[in-house]
């Protein structure tokens, strides 16, 4: 007897923090087994939990008090009133359950964000059965809730804005889907792990920067010899030259067709270089780089990005910007 006692008393000495941590870990593991991570979830009895709310306990207390009153006053109608409340509670359990069951959640697209701003997570709520879902509350663990009805529509897109903190790949924890409809006395919910993530770019921080012009890079330099910005000189007219480029004044003078030559301003590519950032702090470097990527893109300049181990050839445009930001985010 005493030998069986000792392990439990030893367990009692385990620090409480450890114990709750252990319980939480067990709970997580159990949850992961029961509701694994998916991109598509159908809420059914396997995934749904149900429990009275605080108000539900108040309601049950009311029913109990009326029950006692019914007994003590020997009043069968008051007694019946408490039975009614009890029955309504049972029906409400089923109705609340039914309100969530059959609801489908699809992971949709995500939109990247800069650290400290809100990332967009698009979800799709859909009916799998011919019934309405009311007051469905969606809440990512640690974020604010959003409430939705799915009444006539078969599916509705839901956009959730989650505030990001750290650069990198942001993977929110489980999504809680809750409903207390119709009476608010019973809560049905499910924790689903949606396979969703989004990129969080570094927070752009402005800094002084001398753009490194590096024209020696043979295969990366973008030279635009036929640009239109700057007059370069004249050459003999060729048949395919556009007429607007012909130097008509020269033709009038000498009777010979010359074509004016121009070259573009952006004949040299800018390089955003890891090494040239005026700090040693890694995250700050990334933030500076991010700022300049945004700045150059805004001005539609051609630039390349040089990170340790990663090199993105000079280019311009949104796609290029996205590629650079992604490289910064994933660094």
């Amino acid at each position, binding site marked *: 007897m005493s030998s069986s006692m000792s392990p439990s008393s030893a367990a009692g000495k385990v620090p409480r923090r450890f114990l709750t941590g252990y319980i939480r870990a067990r709970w997580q593991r159990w949850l992961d087994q029961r509701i694994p991570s998916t991109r598509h979830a159908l809420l059914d009895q396997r995934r749904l939990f149900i429990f009275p709310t605080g108000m539900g306990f108040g309601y049950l207390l009311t029913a109990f008090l009326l029950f006692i009153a019914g007994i003590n006053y020997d009043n069968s109608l008051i*007694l019946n009133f408490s039975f009614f409340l009890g029955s*309504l509670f049972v*029906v409400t359990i089923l109705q609340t359950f039914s309100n969530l069951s059959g609801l489908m959640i699809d992971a949709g697209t995500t939109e990247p964000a800069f650290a400290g701003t809100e990332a967009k997570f698009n979800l799709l709520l859909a009916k799998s059965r011919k019934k309405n879902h009311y007051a469905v509350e969606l809440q990512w663990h640690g974020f604010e809730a959003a409430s939705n009805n799915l009444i006539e529509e078969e599916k509705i897109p839901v956009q959730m804005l989650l505030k990001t903190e750290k650069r990198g790949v942001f993977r929110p924890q489980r999504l809680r889907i809750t409903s207390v409809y119709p009476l608010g006395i019973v809560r049905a919910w499910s924790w689903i792990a949606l396979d969703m993530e989004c990129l969080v770019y570094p927070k752009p921080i402005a800094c002084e920067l001398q753009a490194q012009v590096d024209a020696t890079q043979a295969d990366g330099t973008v030279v635009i010899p036929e640009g239109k910005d700057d007059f370069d000189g004249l050459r003999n007219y060729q048949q395919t030259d556009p007429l607007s480029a012909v130097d008509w004044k020269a033709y009038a003078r000498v009777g010979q067709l010359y074509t004016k030559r121009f070259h573009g301003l952006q004949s040299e590519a800018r390089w955003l270089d890891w090494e040239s950032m005026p700090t040693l702090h890694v995250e700050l470097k990334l933030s500076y780089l991010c700022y300049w990527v945004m700045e150059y893109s805004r001005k539609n300049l051609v630039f390349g990005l040089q990170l340790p181990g990663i090199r993105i050839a000079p280019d311009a445009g949104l796609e290029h910007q996205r590629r650079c930001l992604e490289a910064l985010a994933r660094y």
Partner: protein
Amino acid sequence: MARDVKRHGFPMPRSAFVLLLITNVLAVIPHLERVPGWMLPAFGGVLLWRIQVFRQRWPFPGRSVRLLLVVSGFAGVILHHGTVLGPDAGVALLITAYLFKQLEMVTRRDAFLVVILSYFVLATEFLFSRSLYSTLYVLLVLVVITATQVALNHSGSRIAVTQPLKVSAKLILQSIPLMIALFFLFPRVGPLWQLNLTNKQNFIGLSDRMSPGDIAELSRSGNLAFRAEFRGDVPPMRDRYWRAAVFDWFDGRTWHASQADRFDAFNPQDLARGQRRYDYRIILEPTGQRWLMAMAAAEVHLGDARATGLLTHVHKKEIDSALSYDVTSYPDFRYQPDGLTAREGMIYRQLPATGNDAARRHGRELFRKAGESPQALIESILRAFREEEFYYTLKPPLLGANTVDEFLFQTRRGYCAHYAGAFVFLLRSAGIPARLVGGYHGGEAHPIGNYLLVHQYDAHAWAEAWIAGQGWVRVDPTAAVAPNRIEMGSLDSTSDDSFMTDSPLSPERLRNMALFARARLLADYVDYLWFKNVVSYNSEKQNQLFRSLLGQVTPQRIAALLGGVAAVIVLILVVGILLRHPAMRTLDRTDRLYLQFCSKLARRGFERQPGEGPQSYADRLCQQLPAQTTQIRRITEIYLTLKYAPAVQRGNIQQQKSQYSGTLSDLQKDLQLRVRSFRL
């Protein structure tokens, strides 16, 4: 934002607010007659304030204002009722709290609390009335309360009021079967502790004193006093004297109920029963008194009842809620024919020391004229009432100090209490033991059920005189003045319109309208059945039910019965609520047939991937199942034609190979046939 919530409450959906207002009004309405008069304007004011808060015109009242309102409200209730105990005061306090909680309904939780309070306010209605119609009203209000809760939890702010009402009605309908099962099968236990109710309710009915005006008051009330359900014949009108109390002490103005019942137990040897008997059950509405109505001489079969030497019966405690008991009555009886005790002789000859001298003299003189014979005296008094200028009216003139004198010699207008009172006074003046008996007379035979309805307007007073050798003899002086009152019942006896003036809309006033009368009686019958089968359902009846259902009653069997019934109901609910909704995919018949075909194949391991087209699937199958190639190809072909080919082409496929005319449904039939007969 937070400040705004504090000023105007959380953003409650409009429909929820409207429903909450309706709930408030409906829950309080039945209590209005019981609560202090100032509550009605207070109620209106609070609702107005709350509406203005909702419209964001006014803010919530400040903390001190609220405190002031609540304190003055409670103080008002306590002053009005003089106590905080008892149902009336309790309900008034509850309603006060309910009222002022409105002005504090800031958060969703507060709104929920108001809903909970509504449940309580509504349930207390059953303390006062347990009729079927009250129950139906409560059910109606429950629909509204539940709808309020639905609306509060609905996330759309713009929903019609009707939508939550529909949801709520559905919820309530679904919960009723389980409620009924619990009502009849949930084991009833006795009170957990003794409630000491100091009941100060204003019951309408007889009281323990009878002064001029009391019965007139009653006859203006159409309320039901009790029902009497007979097992055999219903007694004739002359036997329907429902004895409640005996009044034996006269103070010159008011007759007081006998205290004798406190001391004198019923002695069976005093009573000689006759042959005739009536067996019946009385279902008594609450009276607030202890008297049990019955026709003399009665045996009341009720454990808590006690027979008294006055041939009345008293209940152990005040009757605060409806009560039913079985009675056997022997109308041809003799009681105390052998003589009275000396004490009784004193009591029943008691008169006040002074006053009403003319009447005293008159009584003695009449007795002398009658040759000292009690029978002759009684005859002469009745003859005087019948032949002289006496009138029966429910609106007699006011009487002064010597009530009997004034009535007998001046006004000569009155009703049963006047006549019976004067009669007893005259007899006592002559030294003959006599007493006043209060109760009811008559009752309306119900055409459907074999029972009588006795209303408050049937309240009556008559006299009893003791005659040596005969014992106590019932004399009804009113019969001499207004024979109709006795022969036909109270309604036909007065010609003036004093009868039931209090309730102008009372159904009684319209009873001459045949249809209405029928409806009224039917309604009463339903209510009667309700009371008999539901309201009076108690542990005793439950035991009977258990015995008839289970044979041997053991806790295990009761649990099994309750559990079984509840489980069946819940199972039906589960099926009805959870499994009822069809899947969303709106597949047409063709698709369903094709999917049947696919699932036949899938069972054999040839599953079609969701993204796999029918043609590619068929190609794959034909390689793996060469024997079924023709069938598979044909089914696929028909399916593809039905789904993807234009209507013209459907004809073509038919002309080639079969006898069908090529309409859509014929092709479908073909497909169905082929899918059904498809075997691997």
